[in-house]
């Protein structure tokens, strides 16, 4: 096998080498994309250690399944999909029902968020990046895992409604409702409006 300069090689070359069991190439891929995979896990789980553990598990699974990667998407997207599926499995096991039932009731009743007036201030202009991230983190924590998942899949994974519905095994209408609800809830948090759950 020809020597590869891992740090300067692009992902395609590294993936091809890793598929031939070149651990050095795979280590470089981990180094390049570990933050993104972790960020995705953290968005889903809202718990740092869980996100680290699930990221690690995702990388091990990625190694096992590497030969199945055909290049239909970018390698980082392929990895984030693996970690999202692991997070979804974990969330189902954890059964965070009490939070979901409140959210579900709120959604069924029409939701305060559906009726509240639009937030006119642009948070990206008003808030500094650090504070913005904190507010978004807070907002994401207040969502049920189903609402959070829809948001993550749409905003970060850039999946369309149909793809999200398939991934979450629900209707497109449900995806749209959940997305709308999640966005409006976040808007309220970003605008620092106090809402009672």
């Amino acid at each position, binding site marked *: 096998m020809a020597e590869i300069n891992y740090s300067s090689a692009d992902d395609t070359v590294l993936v091809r080498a890793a598929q031939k069991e070149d651990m050095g190439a795979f280590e470089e891929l981990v180094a390049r994309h570990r933050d*993104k995979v*972790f960020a995705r896990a953290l968005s889903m789980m809202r718990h740092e250690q869980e996100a680290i553990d699930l990221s*690690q598990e995702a990388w091990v699974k990625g190694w096992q399944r590497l030969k199945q990667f055909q290049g239909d998407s970018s390698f980082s997207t392929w990895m984030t999909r693996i970690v999202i599926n692991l997070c979804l499995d974990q969330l189902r096991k954890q059964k965070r029902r009490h939070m979901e039932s409140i959210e579900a009731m709120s959604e069924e009743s029409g939701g305060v968020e559906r009726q509240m007036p639009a937030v006119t201030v642009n948070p990206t202009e008003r808030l500094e990046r650090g504070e913005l991230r904190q507010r978004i983190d807070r907002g994401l924590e207040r969502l049920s895992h189903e609402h959070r998942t829809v948001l993550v899949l749409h905003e970060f994974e850039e999946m369309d409604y149909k793809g999200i519905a398939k991934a979450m095994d629900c209707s497109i209408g449900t995806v749209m409702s959940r997305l709308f609800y999640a966005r409006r809830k976040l808007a309220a948090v970003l605008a620092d409006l106090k809402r009672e759950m």
Partner: protein
Amino acid sequence: MTEEQQLKLQAFLDGELPEDETREIISLITRDEEAKALHAELKNTRRAIKSSEANVRLPEPREFFWSKIEREIQKLEPVVESKPSVSFFDQLRRLLVPMSAAAVVVIAGFIAYQQMLPVHSTETEMAMADSSAFTYHDYSAGMTLVWLPFPAENDLAQNSAPATIQ
């Protein structure tokens, strides 16, 4: 705004609204202040969310994180490639040759056995030791008759009721 209009407005923002409904929503956003404000809010929120992941860092050093992954990979059992599944007809075809051979052997054996079996008909044979003795076999009836000469052959000639052995 109705709930339906709100969701359509969101779909329009996400590029998911069918073309025939797009004009209606654009018109709504243009003429209705509430729709315009909601459209702006959804757009701003979307931008804010997308920017939030930009600076997230895994809080473990590269070497440490990699060492954990490497250890787990080394623990993995070698993957055994599963044999491709064989169709029913392929399985049947594979069995056909030995089954045919076995059938031929059975048939040949049966024929040989049949040839070894005595003919199921009446048969007479002469006992060689005594030329006067006369043996009669009836295999179908499962019967053998033996005529033995009595000392007085004349008696035999006159009283020829055979002794039957079955």
